[in-house]
């Protein structure tokens, strides 16, 4: 029971963490809560659906339900969603930033999120899609602890992406510049950092990671227009839990939220998933608004 909660919670938590990285970065850098972040996951999942479809069916890999076309689609979709996130900033948020209204940005992102989701619903309809019709093979990891091969591979890929993101932030000049702008934009300008370039990179990375989260969600659950919307509260919860601006915080926050949701399902029922994230987030905001990792203050 506990083991099952852990494995389910960690898998969905890893996806939440992936999506929350972009959220926490843009929130830390641009000081606004982007309600459209969840939709990047939705678009990522649908991009991959189209691309994998176009690449055609290939035999599934080993015990998985999907083959290399989906892996290729994952990469291409990450690229496309990165461009989507970047263009949303270019046509909407960047111009509104010039007016200098942080809260207007939030309203705009709320509108953008509904528009993006409704566009998907218009194009694909409300019914769910699956990357594969195959039945996922279940492995017994320990007594009372089962996971599908898909779940494990997705978890591994998510962890690899998180590690890569962590290394990028910690070790590369771009990562250094991102941390610098996030901490002190004025000083970053004085030090010769082009903040606009850093912001661009942040949208691209955040969009790509959210797309990966969406594809992984599609592999383990299903592809639906509302998938990103339902992810939104968990994403916010993870970002706030980990401390706004903190990438390791978002990852850990994602895991905590994932496990809390999985633990709450047997108690309250699956329909309250989103509410669980909300309650955890509210508790965090009231008790320790800087988050576990001491990000920006509330």
């Amino acid at each position, binding site marked *: 029971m506990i083991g099952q909660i852990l494995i389910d919670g960690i898998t969905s938590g890893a996806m939440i963490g992936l999506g929350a990285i972009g959220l926490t970065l843009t*929130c830390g850098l641009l*000081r*606004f*809560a982007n*309600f459209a972040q969840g939709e990047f996951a939705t678009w990522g999942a649908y991009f991959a659906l189209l691309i994998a479809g176009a690449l055609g069916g290939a035999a599934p890999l080993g015990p998985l339900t999907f083959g290399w076309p989906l892996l290729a689609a994952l990469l291409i979709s990450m690229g496309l969603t990165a461009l989507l996130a970047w263009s949303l900033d270019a046509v*909407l948020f960047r*111009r*509104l930033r010039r*007016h*200098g*209204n*942080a*809260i*207007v*940005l*939030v*309203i*705009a992102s*709320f*509108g*953008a999120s*509904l*528009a993006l*989701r*409704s*566009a998907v*619903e*218009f194009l694909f*309809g409300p019914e769910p899609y699956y990357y594969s019709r195959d039945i996922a093979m279940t492995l017994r990891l320990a007594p009372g602890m089962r996971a599908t091969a898909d779940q494990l591979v997705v978890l591994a890929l998510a962890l690899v992406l998180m590690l890569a993101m962590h290394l990028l932030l910690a070790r590369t000049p771009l990562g250094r510049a991102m941390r610098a702008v996030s901490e002190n934009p004025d000083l970053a300008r004085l030090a010769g950092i082009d903040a606009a370039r850093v912001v661009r990179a942040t949208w691209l990375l955040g969009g790509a990671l959210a797309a990966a989260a969406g594809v992984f969600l599609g592999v383990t659950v299903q592809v639906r227009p509302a998938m990103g*919307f339902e992810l939104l*509260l968990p994403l*916010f919860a993870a970002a*706030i839990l980990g401390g706004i601006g903190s990438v390791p915080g978002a990852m850990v926050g994602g895991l905590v939220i994932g496990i809390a949701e999985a633990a709450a399902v047997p108690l309250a*029922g699956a*329909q*309250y998933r*989103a*509410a669980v*994230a*909300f309650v955890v*987030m*509210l508790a965090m*905001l*009231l008790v320790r*608004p800087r988050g576990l990792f001491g990000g*920006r203050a*509330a």
Partner: protein
Amino acid sequence: MTGLLSYLCFFATVALSYGVATLGLNLQWGSAGLFNVGVAGFAGVGAYAAAWITAAPAAAHWGGFAAPIALGWLGAMLAAALVAAVIGAVTLRLRADYLAITTFGAAVTLQLLALDLTALTGGPFGIAFIPKPFEALADRPLAFGAANLALAAAVTAAAFLALERLTQSPWGRVLRALREDEAAAASLGKAPARFRLQAFVIGAALIGLSGAMQAQFFGFIAPDNYLPVFTFQVWVMLVVGGAGNNRGALLGAVAVWALWTLSGTALALLLPGFWQARGAALRVVAIGVVLAATLLARPRGLIGERATVSRHVAQAGG
């Protein structure tokens, strides 16, 4: 002809009910700078309260006290105010964008409760047979529509006048002062938290009233009515009309509701058969574009506040 006229009456009635919600949001955001993204939640609370109070007893849901509609609307305002007092007491001290996230979360949670607590709410099927005002006139569509419109107009006018007085009163001035410069206002001995909570609660009561009006005019409610799209509509109305201005709020409500209705009709005419079922989604995209365009081109809306709407927003984000 009568058909068109009674349709126009119904259109205006609904537009005005949105106007009441927009007025409530304008008090919260336009006057007090409180960023409420949970409008749908408060409207839902009001709608269910009114339905419970006024509907006839039914097995499918709780309540059914068959009380007069006026009582139902009063109860709706009280219920929404109560929920707002609880949510506000917990969240109003948070930074603006955290307030947005938490009110959003509260509305999502309320909607989940409406879906799940079937014994209370009728679950996904909602509550039907909510009595309509002037039901005795129902067989004369034009008189029925006109009477309902008159009722909606009277309620909206009352809300408008009350808010105009309220925002011009010393209380309203303190509110605006708080919004512009909390430290300065607080140093004058005004307790910011209390004023904010009052504005939040009064605004929510109006939003609850708007939910109750719609429940009564449509005669039917379901959890699906209170999705974030509702919040979004009211926000677009306020932004398009001009935050900080009650006239603007009403104008925005009517204009956006007209746009919403017309775009629905237009899509039904233009879209080929298969796509029609999905027309509703395209409508949301369209109105999202209207919002973005308004924010970019006319950040103060059709009629903005006289002074600059928001120095506070520049700082609110941190």
